């Protein structure tokens, strides 16, 4: 029989340390739904996704019951809608409404892929889609959008960066009566992964197969609890403990992923080795850093602790899964992490420190509430800085800022649920307007010339 201690450890992780599978995401290619008539295109999209994902939610619910592992989200990621718009023309918001109907029919929590990949420039459909994002996110509840504006291979598309500053603001303005939630469903990427199961950035990349199951694990609470048991250990032992814990967490993700793939008759894609926090007490990445010995997340030493954590999670997780992908790293979304919220409230955690942290972890400046009167060019410049970190370090970075329209610095937005709540954080107001207005492209760095 299995060791009693191992059994009780697993139960303890689930019951008291918030161990869960964050998401089972089905990726679906919509390339065969493109046609030159948007009505027919929308019908094909609806029919295809509802056919392929019909059993997603009930099957995943069954796995949850049989294995006793909480599976929090069931999601769908689709081919970037800009590609459909390129073929069909018409108002892309029609696709947004179709995807919302799909989400309602199959009962998924989120559907991602209202996206455009414009790292080197705009092609047909891209600009129309980007301009429609604010309206699309305001008139839907479960749709998520992302735009990739740069990559290590191509450099950064500064025209897109300038545009996205305005789009983020507009998203917040159109949803100002609902905590500016539109901006929380939009992420701007550099080096966006094509198989990411996490929202808001999930989309089904053009290199992906027809249909695939990707799984995102979680478990910051488990890592913190493991570290709490070794208070006097040196930092090598800390790294080893994180590694061992990440292995166990990921094995569970791998099991769920292979079961879901088998039961749905769909290939297994990847397990995303991310430590994804929630606002619940005991499910915080910031608290892991504090367990390592920081008074508060944001203190000097935070970047080093996060680098160690991120690396150890990957080392432990890689061996536990046959295919690793997506974002794979520790997430630091401010409003979704109880420890980050407290650190931001106290002023210990600033945007500048968060930016430094993003150079050593996935993903980027995530779920940060900024003053509603922040000019579009400052938001664009924040996006450019973050994209530069991603481009130079050959890693994914992203920006998900929520301009709090009509809310002052020090006050808070409350999104509820997994998105949490966050104080309005101070933004450096020196103007980058001239830099942003130049447009053009930042050339790809030398790091891109690996051939």
């Amino acid at each position, binding site marked *: 029989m299995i060791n009693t201690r191992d059994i009780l450890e*697993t139960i303890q992780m689930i019951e008291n340390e918030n161990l869960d599978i964050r998401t089972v995401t089905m990726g679906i290619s919509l390339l065969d739904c493109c046609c030159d008539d948007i009505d027919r295109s929308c019908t094909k999209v609806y029919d295809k996704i509802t056919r392929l994902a019909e059993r997603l939610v009930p099957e995943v619910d069954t796995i949850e019951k049989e294995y006793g592992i909480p599976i929090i989200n069931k999601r769908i990621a689709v081919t970037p809608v800009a590609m459909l718009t390129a073929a069909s023309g018409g108002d892309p918001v029609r696709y947004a409404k179709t995807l919302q109907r799909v989400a309602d029919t199959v009962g998924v929590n989120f559907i991602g892929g209202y996206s455009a990949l414009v790292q080197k420039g705009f092609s047909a459909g891209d600009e129309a889609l980007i301009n429609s994002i604010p309206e699309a996110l305001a008139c839907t509840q479960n749709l998520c959008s992302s735009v990739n504006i740069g990559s290590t291979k191509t450099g950064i598309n500064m025209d897109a960066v300038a545009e996205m500053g305005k789009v983020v603001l507009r998203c917040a303005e159109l949803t100002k009566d609902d905590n500016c939630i539109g901006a929380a469903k939009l992420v701007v990427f550099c080096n966006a992964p094509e198989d990411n199961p996490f929202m808001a950035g999930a989309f089904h990349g053009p290199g992906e197969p027809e249909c695939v199951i990707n799984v995102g694990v979680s478990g910051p609470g488990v890592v913190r609890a493991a570290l709490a048991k070794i208070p006097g250990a040196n930092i090598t032992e800390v790294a080893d403990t994180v590694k061992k814990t990440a292995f166990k967490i990921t094995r569970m993700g791998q099991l769920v992923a292979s079961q879901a793939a088998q039961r749905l008759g769909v290939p297994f894609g990847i397990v995303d080795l991310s430590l994804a926090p929630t606002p619940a007490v005991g499910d915080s990445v910031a608290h892991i850093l504090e367990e390592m010995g920081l008074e508060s997340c944001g203190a000097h030493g935070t970047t080093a602790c996060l680098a160690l954590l991120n690396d150890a999670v990957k080392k432990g997780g890689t061996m536990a899964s046959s295919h690793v992908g997506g974002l794979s790293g520790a997430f630091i979304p401010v409003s979704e992490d109880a420890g980050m919220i407290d650190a931001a409230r106290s002023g210990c955690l600033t945007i500048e420190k968060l930016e430094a942290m993003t150079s050593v972890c996935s993903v980027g400046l995530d779920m940060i509430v900024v003053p509603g009167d922040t000019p579009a060019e400052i938001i664009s410049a924040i996006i450019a800085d973050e994209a530069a970190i991603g481009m130079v370090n050959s890693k994914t970075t992203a920006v998900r800022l929520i301009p709090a329209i009509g809310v002052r610095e020090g006050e808070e937005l409350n999104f509820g649920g997994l998105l949490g709540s966050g104080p309005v954080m101070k933004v450096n107001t020196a103007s980058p307007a001239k830099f942003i207005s130049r447009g053009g492209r930042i050339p790809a760095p030398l790091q891109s010339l690996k051939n």
Partner: protein
Amino acid sequence: MRAVITVVGKDTVGILSGVSDICAENNINIIEVSQSILQELFCMIMLVDMEKSSVAFADFSDRLKAMGKEKNLQIHTMQEDVFNAMHHV
């Protein structure tokens, strides 16, 4: 398919018989039981074979959970694979 039932809570009369009665009613064979009492906390782990079970896994698990609630116990029913995956390379 084999499952592991874990029961944790304050020791009272009839915990083992309560769980095994539900197994028997549903044609579920008990393979192994281990139980201990740590500082008045009752802890039982039962390995069962569900191959010939007359009930769906989810219903069986709900039934045990409901019994646990009545007696103020935490009862988890999970497929054995979870523990093998997590704790064995």
